[in-house]
């Protein structure tokens, strides 16, 4: 009996190369059946199959051509409230059997945990809209090479101070993901992700600077043109040439939209269930309390058609839904999976695996308007390092950008740090720009913070 199940898995394994959705769903169901047969009281399985192509051209000729084809099966079994997980990239029957077996074996050694288990059945997504995420791009290697060469050429021709290049990269990717659990839930969808990027080196007086730009979309027809990506990359590289250091001071700081996103990422980290139930967050017990100034509104919109962060259900099959996280500056709730929710005596918010399209509402000014409103201070365009402590909110990172005086950019700056505490930084946001960067899962305009410590010479 057990043996015949393995044979069935092997037959499915052969069909997977055709990427049929129904085959993957069938495989998911069989993995769950195998888990049950091996003694699991409940189980969940995640299958993903991705394929794509990426091409990099450098100095006018192709440099790398990479064909991507990744697949994985991850299974979690529960023996009552004991939990074991296992995964493999190898979809052959013997390996899948070993994977389920390994999950069951190790689960026997874990402790009982009343909070462990599948999400409550009534929270599972029941039906969902087509989110318009799947736009296969019939792009072959020759075409991809041509686009990459065009992008880099546009950039290199713009300014003679562009002396070298890290190349332009074109990539297309299509993925299928299936999630199923022993509540009888099975959800599957396909999504594409296409991108075009360019990284350049500029040189002036013997000093080099590197910068880049990229465009990313579900639908390749919505990508910015190669010429535009190249032009912005070139402008961003050239404007960094001649960078100086700054004296150590206190100053207002604008985070340009592309890096402002990271501030919201730290906010999400601090209101995530895992940090909260471990008492490892500076925003513990802050629901219902003001965290931002009253003009700040932050919400999650998981069902925006074609958006990079859209998803019909979370990593546990729980329905995702639009909701406010911050209204009038006040924290409305947390970011919870079913496990962290149970630990906190709350209900899952459909955020196993993270948030989906987090948006901070833009204000009325563009970046130029924010610069005027700041008058004198620092515009940060790049952050490096990991100096963020979610337990305390302490923040200290390396930065590069521009010194601003009288509302105008004066000169590029580098080799400085900016430091503060996220609690104060959030509370002292003075404005959010309308220059929203929509390329990622977090959408933000540039953010002006009243005061931080800038360390330099």
């Amino acid at each position, binding site marked *: 009996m057990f043996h015949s199940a393995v044979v069935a898995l092997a037959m499915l394994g052969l069909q997977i190369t055709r990427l049929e959705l129904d085959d993957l769903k069938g495989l998911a169901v069989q993995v769950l059946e195998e888990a049950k047969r091996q003694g699991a009281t409940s189980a969940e399985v995640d299958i993903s199959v991705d394929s794509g192509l990426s091409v990099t051209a450098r100095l006018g000729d192709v440099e790398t051509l990479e064909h991507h084809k990744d697949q994985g099966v991850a299974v979690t079994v529960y023996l009552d409230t004991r939990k074991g997980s296992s*995964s493999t990239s190898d979809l052959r029957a013997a390996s899948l059997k070993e994977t389920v077996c390994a999950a069951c074996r190790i689960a026997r050694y874990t402790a009982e945990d009343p909070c462990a288990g599948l999400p409550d059945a009534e929270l599972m997504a029941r039906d969902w809209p087509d989110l318009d995420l799947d736009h296969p791009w019939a792009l072959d290697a020759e075409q991809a090479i041509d686009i990459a060469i065009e992008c880099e050429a546009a950039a290199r021709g713009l300014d003679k101070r562009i002396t070298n290049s890290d190349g332009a990269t074109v990539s297309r990717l299509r993925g299928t993901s299936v999630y199923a659990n022993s509540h009888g839930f099975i959800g599957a969808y396909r999504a594409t992700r296409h991108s075009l990027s360019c990284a350049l080196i500029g040189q002036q007086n013997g000093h080099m*600077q590197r910068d880049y730009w990229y465009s990313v979309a579900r639908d390749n027809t919505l990508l910015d043109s190669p010429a535009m990506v190249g032009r912005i990359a070139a402008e961003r590289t050239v404007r960094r040439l001649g960078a100086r250091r700054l004296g150590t001071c206190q100053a207002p700081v604008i985070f340009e939209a592309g890096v402002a996103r990271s501030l919201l990422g730290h906010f999400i980290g601090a209101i995530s269930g895992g940090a909260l139930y471990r008492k490892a967050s500076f925003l513990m017990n802050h629901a219902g309390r003001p965290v931002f100034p009253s003009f700040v509104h932050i919400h999650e919109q998981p069902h925006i058609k074609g958006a990079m962060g859209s998803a019909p259900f979370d990593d546990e099959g729980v329905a995702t839904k639009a909701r406010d996280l911050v209204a009038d500056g006040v924290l409305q709730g947390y970011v919870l999976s079913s496990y962290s929710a149970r630990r906190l005596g709350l209900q899952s918010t459909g955020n196993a695996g993270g948030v989906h399209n987090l948006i901070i509402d833009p204000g009325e000014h563009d970046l130029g308007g924010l610069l005027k409103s700041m008058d004198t201070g620092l515009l940060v365009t790049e952050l490096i390092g990991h100096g963020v402590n979610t337990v305390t909110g302490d923040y200290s990172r390396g930065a590069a950008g521009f010194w601003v005086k009288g509302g105008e950019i004066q000169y590029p700056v580098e080799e400085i740090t900016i430091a503060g505490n996220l609690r104060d930084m959030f509370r002292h946001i003075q404005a959010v720009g309308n220059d929203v960067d929509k390329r990622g899962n977090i959408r933000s305009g540039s953010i002006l913070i009243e005061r931080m410590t800038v360390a330099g010479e």
Partner: protein
Amino acid sequence: MTAIDIARQHILEPSGLGEDELGNVLSTLLGSAIDSGDLYFQLSRHEGWSLEDGTVKGASYNIERGVGVRAMSGDKTGFAYSDDIVLPALMDASIAARAIARGTSSSQLAAWGGRPGHALYLPDSPLESLSEQAKVELLQQVDAEARRQDPRITQVMVSLSGLHEVVLVASSDGTLAADVRPLVRLNVAVIAEANGRREQGSAGGGGRTGYQLFFEEGLALRYAREAARQALLNLEAVDAPAGYMTVVLGPGWPGVLLHEAIGHGLEGDFNRKGTSAFSGRMGERVANPGVTVVDDGTLAGRRGSLNIDDEGTPTQCTILIEDGILTGYMQDKLNARLMKTKSTGNGRRESYAHLPMPRMTNTYMLAGEYDPQEIIASVDKGFYAVNFGGGQVDITSGKFVFSASEAYLIEKGRITRPVKGATLVGNGPDVLTRVSMVGNDLKLDEGVGTCGKDGQSVPVGVGQPTLKVGGLTVGGTGS
């Protein structure tokens, strides 16, 4: 059994492959204007155990298996991979990879050979080096040891992971080499709480061996005490200073300075392309006399060590900076060929699904002559950092950061108050010219480092003696 026998038994034979088939695939790959090509087979098993609230809440197990096929033509690379190790998939991948080149000339497949690798670790699987029950008990002992330190320790999280990896490289240059690589890691993170203030501390380590490492001289329990000590210390810490000042770096893991400031900038690919702040500076003085920095992949059992790199080249000890003079880059085969030099055994990749590139192994500075106490005593006012989180570097501008997690003020030659963590920022090409004293206390890190480059992570090591740096910018908030 040798590594190559183990690789044959676990990777090739179950797929019905032998040296003849590998030769045929490589011949297909070399068909059209391809200079060279290689196949990288990998089979890895990984497990992870985690404890919180005093009990083991979860465990995971992962099997990965696949083959990467690379074709090179001049400075062009074509790459494809498959998680199905069968001849038709290998042929398909070869045809996809060789599409990088157009032309009629062809290279010859060399006879199998290659230099033997080192024997820096045993091929045994760490996953089987301890019973499941004993793994659980180890985690529980670490938890109890951390909690026992002080009632202010309110949270303890412990994780244990083990990896057993078999790799086989077959290259058109005749290299046929295999390696069987164990890797273990244990980490303890704690939170201490007092008077409404919470702080964290963490410690850990590991290497290329079995789990028995953690029982030697009570190592796992020492990590527990160290994590607790750091968290309790941070409860007392005041704001770190801000500005340019003298910095003393402790021995061991603070060597992440070398990894960021020097190491990445000396990787062959950036220098071939002229995109590194160190490009074209070979033979120049980049550090004070007395400063020697090496990258050494041949240290027994270390996290960053390898018997052979991921292109089948035995690892070596490469002198990067000798007595202050820049002497060497780290190379893989592609960049070495294009720069007309030899691979230094630094060709590494995250997995079969990633392309190899020049990467560090264990990067450290050799010991100098000063007593660490003498170094501290020489500083009137400064910042003493003994433990760090991670770092990052902008290769092209040379600017780098690394973030201190345990630091103190030095006032009139004495260590005074603990200060909060802060990010330090500097300029790679000149930071070592400001190293004015090198301690006699060289130490390597505990085996915790993971380096990221172009989205690929590989385990690495760092080390250094106590160092006095005449000036670095400290990114605190205090005065």
